[in-house]
């Protein structure tokens, strides 16, 4: 470091090394996703990157596989119900959380995000026993409840963050002009928190779509979600069809990221 007299000569090599490191780290982050998308378009018979020629045949193959398509449909259905229920429950909880202050508010936040902080494995094992006891073991309803629970914090965090941006004075003004609580909510608060609410729904849907461990333990008789079906497929067949299925899942998450950017901006969302 003898060249420290000139800031330029000192920083040059360090910055170049740092830049190379950053590029390498992003390659590490993106490589697995890029490989999957690439492998899904292969014209060959093996999962391989770079792909052997280009074709869409593995997508056709995917849509001809009953087990995978049934899994996809089940995941979409459970995800949609999860999104609607968590958005409603989280909206109500966020409205209630607004009137708390100080330490109580902190505890409330913590409680609402518990399913995110406790490992999925523990919740899944506990739920397996509990659903068996209340005779909902191995039913779609039980699995649905597990997904709602696990996705709730994502909806709550997004909606609560949006609620914090609404100035309290607006509510007071609305009330002093004679609006009922419901009118204030529908005409003042709801339009303002709409982007946050939508984002919460998207996060909840995507989280539900991706859940594996809890679905494995709670899976209903004869029903598979897409990740469960994909795991079995990878274990027994390992064909590019799996890459096509995984690409659909990646597209969904990229779509989610794009919508979130449009709605609230990624920087504020994360």
């Amino acid at each position, binding site marked *: 470091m003898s060249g420290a007299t000139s800031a330029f000569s000192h920083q040059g090599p360090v910055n170049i090394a740092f830049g190379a490191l950053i590029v390498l780290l992003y390659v590490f982050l993106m490589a697995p996703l890029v490989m999957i998308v690439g492998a899904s378009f292969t014209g060959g018979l093996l999962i*391989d990157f770079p792909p052997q020629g280009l074709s869409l045949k593995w997508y056709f193959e995917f849509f001809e596989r009953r087990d995978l398509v049934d899994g996809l449909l089940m995941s979409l259905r459970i995800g949609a119900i999860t999104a609607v229920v968590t958005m409603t429950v989280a909206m109500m909880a966020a409205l*209630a959380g607004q009137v708390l202050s100080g330490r109580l508010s902190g505890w409330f936040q913590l409680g609402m995000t518990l399913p995110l902080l406790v490992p999925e494995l523990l919740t899944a094992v506990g739920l397996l026993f509990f659903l068996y006891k209340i005779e909902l073991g191995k039913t779609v309803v039980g699995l649905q409840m597990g997904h709602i629970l696990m996705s709730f914090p994502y909806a709550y965090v997004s909606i609560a963050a949006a609620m914090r941006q609404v100035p309290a004075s607006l509510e007071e003004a609305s009330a002093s002009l004679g609006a009922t609580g419901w009118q204030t909510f529908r005409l003042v608060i709801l339009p303002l928190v709409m982007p946050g609410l939508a984002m919460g729904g998207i996060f909840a849907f995507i989280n539900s779509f991706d859940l594996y461990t809890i679905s494995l333990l709670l899976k209903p008789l004869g029903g598979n979600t897409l990740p469960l079906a994909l795991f079995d497929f990878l274990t027994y067949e390992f064909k590019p069809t799996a890459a096509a299925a*995984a690409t659909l899942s990646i597209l969904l998450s990229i779509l989610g990221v794009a919508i979130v950017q449009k709605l609230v901006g990624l920087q504020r969302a994360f």
Partner: protein
Amino acid sequence: MRLPNPRLLLAIPAIALIFVFMILPITNMAEMSFRTTGTKDPFGEDYTLAHYLRIFGDTYYWGVLLRSLLTAATVTVLCLLVSYPIAWHMSKAKGMKAVFLYACIASPLMTGVLVRNFGWMIVAALNGPLNETLMALGIIERPLRLLFTQGLVILALVHVFVPFMVLPINNALRNISPTLIEASTAMGATRRDVFRDIILPLSFPGIYPGVILVYVLAVAAFVTPALLGGQMVSYMPTLIIGELTGTFQWPFGSALAIVLSLSTVVVVAIFTALTAKLMERSKA
């Protein structure tokens, strides 16, 4: 006395959801771990300490527990080393570049763990891109068998958890005022001094939650070892799920889960105690 705000009633469905479908079931699991082994049902009527005695008396379970705790610690340290430069670089970015970098962190985060692990199966295949790159660079002569090794499990877990570490550290770094760094540089501090005395302690409020979250989630990660670990080595989560779904030993599986959770809490407590000084400095 002031009456509680009636709006609080709106929290009832959320509290009920978390209490009934999470707190109650986990309490239930703790109780289950003391049940006797059932003959007809997955568990018996009476209570016993036998499952815990069996775990503590068998070095096999000690070994698996230790492997799980150490693997998670390795994953956490590597995760921190990978995430810190990314978070640093991200915290400096503005405008469209920042949006792009956030998208690069958010897209893997929002893609399922199973899908991302599958990506590593392609990367690490015998004639896959990783082996071919290493051979082209002359680092290895023959392709390495990477699939179904502990190394790949660790690599894939780091990949899964990097976003969880990057985001809080990035937020902490963004809160450091640039004037603080300029002032200390002007007073003759070297880059290394600035990093050690200002940036590192002030970013600790982001490092701490990141480390805890990644460790807790990594200890209990099931999908990655199940898909990429192969049959040769066991981790606690694969063992637990095996007891529950394979052999239907619910009480014993619960006891394993409780032992795993308590060990995790102990590790987190030790980490918190060891870093208490750093945390204090960050507040000063």
